[in-house]
Structures are given as structure tokens and as C-alpha cells.
């Protein structure tokens, strides 16, 4: 049996999931969500900015929060220093005179402890989080608040993009984040969101109290909290036009380190305390489709990557072997004609192309529904060229960490 045969079921499932995302985006609940107008009743909101050595970006983050279009008496900004060793506390103090800003200094205890310190210091109806390397659009909070009109909504996520991508790797991440906008928007329509990311996710105060604040969550406290909300039977919504821009790793090493932490956190949460959610009919799309396909996608990505790597290595090795001793001027020049007769007809190739095409479509939809400005052409090209070869590295690294019980540091 050809090794390609192993890939077909995974490609079929990948196309199925992407089709599901597309169909759900076109369905009525998603259309209604996109048509929502601004909220008329504005609750009190506290936005917590947990910081640990964030001196380079903190000021810009605070400025963007102070520029939010929201009644000043209803919005408080809580800057929590989690034992920074750089100039972060000094920068915080420069904002402390602002009536909306409060500063909390504490010893280092991890991001979840910083968030809990912020929560304990406020009585606001909605609690928001914003990583200190992220920046929000002025109308983002009003877009978020609209989601909480539905009393069943316990948390809401925003639409994330990469802040000023510079190199190819960051452009690739920008396309990936834009894909994520479509993904979250679609999954929110069937209550299938399983992570409320650090950049600008909001929680209903009463639910946070009920669930008992943030936990360590295997270094993914945002995912752990989302899974706990889902487990408790609450709803997580998404505001596709609440735009937030976040800094992303600029080197491959840092990116792999960051994603290894995310993926290993997911695996530890999902196969630990929250394993009951997988396959749970009570949790609908989340239990029956989203989480199983998320777990499967890790395995299938590793398998497909290994398969492609195996084939590429085999072909490259054969090509080098038969060209040994032949003058380079001949060996490096393509021979033969460009004739349709030689067009490769492999189902593996065609289905892979269909999967990629569906991804491009979802990226384009994500950009459109979030109304994110800028050109994504280079991002999509970078995504097409790099993602399939880079993502499996962190998936393999994370899976290996989980299997071996290895834990890594926070910072990338």
C-alpha cells in the first residue's frame, strides 16, 4: 500500500472541517451576529493588563486603551505588574495619574495571578484582558459589549491581527490570525470556541466569580478558562469587528517556542481535566466536532508533514544520486517540454490543493468580516509557502514535550 493512502482520510476530514466553517459562516446565526448594531446599554468594564517586563510596548498599549470610545466613568484600566525586573513599573506610574488607570504592583507569580489580582480589585460587570504587547481600535470595546446583550454569553473574543508585520514569518502569522478570525466567528455560532486569547477577551464578572478566577492552566490560562466556561455550560461569543493588533515573534526560534507552549498547553488541558469534553454530546459542536478535529489536526499535520518530508527526501536523494558526476550546467537545467502529458495526477495533490484553496478563502473572509485594513497578498503567499513546513515543527515539539512530561519557560 502506498504511504499516500494514509493521508487521504486526513485530507478528507480537513476539507470537511473547512467546509463546515464556511457553511456556518453563511448560516443565519453568523449573519445575525454580523448584523448586530452597537449596544445602547453600556455596562461598567475593567480591562486588566498583566505585565511582566513589558517596558517596550506597555505605553502604546495603555494609549490605545485610553483612546477607546467608551464612557470614561464606566471604564477602568488596571495595570498589574507581575514582578517585572525592567522599567515596566516606572512606565506604569507615568499613567497612574490618569483617573481611569489603576496600578497594582505584586511579586512575580505568573500571568493568572496577575489577572486574579486585577479581578479582585474591581467590581466592574465585565472583565477584559489585554496583553501588554497588543493594541486596540477605538471602537473595539463597543463591538465587544454588544455580544453581552445575550444573557447566556459568559465570554467574548475579539478579531486579532498582527501588529505591523515586518518579515515573511510575521506576514505568515498575520494570514494565520486572519484565518483565525473566520474560525472563531464560525465556531461562535455553534458555541465551539475553546480559547479566549489574551488580546482583548472579555468575561462576565458573575461567571468569573462562579468559576473561581484564572488558573495556571499549563501556561495557557486563557484556554483553561475558556474550557472551564464551556464545561460549565456557558456560551462564548465572538465580536468579529472588535479589532486588536498584537506583536508576534519575529524569528522562527521564538515562534516555535511560543507555539510549542500553546499546543502543549492545549494537549495537557484537553487530555487532563477537560478530556470529558471530547465527544460530549451535551457540548454540541465543541464536543462532537471542534475539539476532536483540533486533536486530529495535530496528529494529521505531523503525519502529512512526515509523509511529504519522506517523499521530498527520497526524490531529492534520487535526483542528486543520478546527477552525480554530470556537469552542473546540464544537471541544474530542466529538460523536456512543458506538456500537459506530464501533469501530475495524484488525488493527494488535488485534495491538498483544495484544502489550501479553502484556507485562502477563509483568510479572505476573515479580513472582510473584520474589516481589517491592509493588503494580505504577501501574507497569503507566505502562509502558502511556509506554514505547512513550520507548523508541524511546533506540533511535533509540543507533542514530544507532553509525552516526555517536559515543561518550558514562558517567554519566547
Amino acid at each position, binding site marked *: 500500500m502506498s504511504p499516500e493512502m494514509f493521508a487521504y482520510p486526513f485530507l478528507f476530514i480537513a476539507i470537511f472541517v473547512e467546509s463546515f466553517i464556511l457553511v456556518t459562516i453563511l448560516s443565519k446565526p453568523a449573519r445575525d451576529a454580523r448584523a448586530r448594531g452597537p449596544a445602547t446599554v453600556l455596562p461598567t468594564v475593567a480591562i486588566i493588563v498583566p505585565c511582566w517586563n513589558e517596558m517596550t510596548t506597555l505605553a502604546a498599549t495603555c494609549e490605545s486603551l485610553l483612546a477607546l470610545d467608551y464612557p470614561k466613568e464606566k471604564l477602568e484600566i488596571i495595570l498589574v505588574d507581575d514582578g517585572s525586573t525592567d522599567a515596566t513599573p516606572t512606565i506604569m506610574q507615568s499613567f497612574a495619574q490618569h483617573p481611569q488607570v489603576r496600578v497594582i504592583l505584586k511579586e512575580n507569580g505568573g500571568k493568572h495571578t496577575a489577572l486574579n489580582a486585577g479581578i479582585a480589585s474591581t467590581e466592574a460587570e465585565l472583565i477584559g484582558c489585554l496583553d501588554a504587547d497588543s493594541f486596540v481600535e477605538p471602537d473595539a470595546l463597543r463591538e465587544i459589549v454588544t455580544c453581552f446583550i445575550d444573557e447566556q454569553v459568559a465570554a467574548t473574543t475579539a478579531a486579532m491581527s498582527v501588529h505591523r508585520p515586518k518579515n515573511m514569518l510575521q506576514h505568515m502569522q498575520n494570514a494565520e490570525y486572519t484565518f483565525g478570525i473566520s474560525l472563531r466567528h464560525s465556531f461562535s455560532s455553534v458555541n465551539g470556541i475553546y480559547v479566549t486569547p489574551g488580546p482583548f477577551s472579555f468575561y462576565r464578572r458573575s461567571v468569573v466569580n462562579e468559576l473561581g478566577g484564572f488558573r495556571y492552566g499549563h501556561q495557557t490560562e486563557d484556554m483553561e478558562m475558556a474550557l472551564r466556561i464551556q464545561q460549565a455550560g456557558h456560551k462564548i461569543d465572538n465580536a468579529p469587528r472588535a479589532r486588536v493588533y498584537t506583536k508576534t515573534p519575529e524569528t522562527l526560534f521564538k515562534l516555535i517556542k511560543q507555539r510549542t507552549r500553546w499546543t502543549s498547553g492545549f494537549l495537557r488541558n484537553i487530555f487532563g481535566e477537560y478530556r470529558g469534553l471530547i465527544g460530549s454530546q451535551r457540548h454540541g459542536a465543541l464536543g462532537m466536532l471542534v475539539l476532536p478535529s483540533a486533536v486530529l489536526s495535530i496528529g494529521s499535520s505531523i503525519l502529512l508533514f512526515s509523509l511529504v518530508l519522506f517523499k521530498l527526501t527520497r526524490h531529492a536523494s534520487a535526483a542528486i544520486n543520478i546527477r552525480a558526476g554530470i556537469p552542473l550546467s546540464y*544537471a541544474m537545467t530542466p529538460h523536456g517540454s512543458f506538456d500537459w502529458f506530464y501533469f501530475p495526477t495524484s488525488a493527494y495533490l488535488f485534495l491538498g490543493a483544495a484544502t489550501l484553496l479553502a484556507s485562502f478563502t477563509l483568510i479572505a473572509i476573515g479580513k472582510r468580516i473584520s474589516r481589517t485594513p491592509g493588503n494580505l497578498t504577501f501574507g497569503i503567499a507566505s502562509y502558502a509557502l511556509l506554514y505547512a513546513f513550520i507548523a508541524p515543527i511546533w506540533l511535533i515539539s509540543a507533542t514530544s514535550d507532553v509525552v516526555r512530561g517536559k515543561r518550558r519557560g514562558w517567554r519566547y
Partner: protein
Amino acid sequence: MSLTARNALIALGITIVLTGTVVYTINYLNRARVAELSAIGDKLSIDILSLDTQFSLLTAAPCDSIASSTTLISELADMGTRLAYAESQLGSDNAQVLRLKDQYSLLEIRDYLITKQLATACGTKPPVMVLYFYSNAGDCADCDRAGYALSYLRDTYPKLRVYSFDYNLDLGALKTLIAVTKVKNTLPAFVINGKPSYGFTSLTDLEKQFPKGALATTTPKL
């Protein structure tokens, strides 16, 4: 029916239709490729007949046919490439591929013989001719390298005539050629201007087996 179940059913339908389209497209392209192979088969039959006719005509006026007899070699190379690709796609045991390989080998033998006969009849120096015997049965580790080296030599020295044969092909004419040239089943095997040699180590070693000056690029005199 819940929204999730409804959307999942629609998504499943889309996936099945898409997969079906992919399967249909692949079958369509493969059928078209097989149709082209049939056209190649027809062309081979005509070329064989054409060479047979030329062969007969030579008895009357041997030296008048030199120009036409040499045009076939580039066509042979192109057909050989297509056949090799078809073999890799459809399998070496595919009946159509085997039939085409038979026809192709016959045509090569015909061309080889007529080229030799023309040179003898006209008293001209024959071109350097290489009979190359390979195997696709997995018992010839160096055949791919030898084939590529010969392609390089053929492309670099247009006067060189390379005829490739699958040693294991069940074709009477080929078996006779193997017997006549006394080529043993030690592959890859080469017969360069009638002299057999075996194995492939490097391009340099292969070039050493050619007669002196045979691989010089000739520049026509003005």
C-alpha cells in the same frame, strides 16, 4: 435538527462532491493520457512501416535516403521520455505500456539497422551508436544513473545515437538483438559501436569507452 448537525451534513455533502470531482478529474486526465499513448502507438506503427519501406528502397538507391533516415532519432527520444513517464504512472505491468514498449523497441532496432546499412552502402563513417540495456525490475541499482548520463551525452553530442532497451521485455526481435550482440544479463549494459561493456561507475568512465574523437563536438566548415 440542530444547526451543527445541519451544517455538518451540508459540509459532508460538499466534501463528498469535491472528492468525487477530484476522482473524476484524475480519471479524465488519465484517460486522456491513455488516449495520447494510443496516438503514440499509431505513430510508432506508421514509423515502423515507414522504416520498412525505406529499408526496401535502399536496395535500389541506398545513398539517396540518408537525410530522411536520420530525422527519426529526436522523435525516438521524445517518445522514449513519454513512455518512461507513462510507465512510472501506469505501472510497468500495464498492458498498453508493454505493447508500446514492444513497438518502440522494434522501431529502435529498425532505425539502428538502417543507419548501419546506410553507412555500409554509402561508404561513409557510421555515427557512434550505443545500445543501452536496462531493467525496471528492481535488479539494476545503477540503471537510473546510467540512463541520465546517456541522456546528457545524447543532448550534448547530437551525432550520438542512443537506443535504450528494457532487457526483460518479451519481444522476439529484442531477444535476437541481445543474442547477436552477445549482451549478458549484467545490467546496465552498453554496446558501443558493437563492443559490449557492463556496469556504470561514472560519466568519465563511460566516456572512456567511446572511440577516440567520437564525443567531439563538430563544427561545420563554412
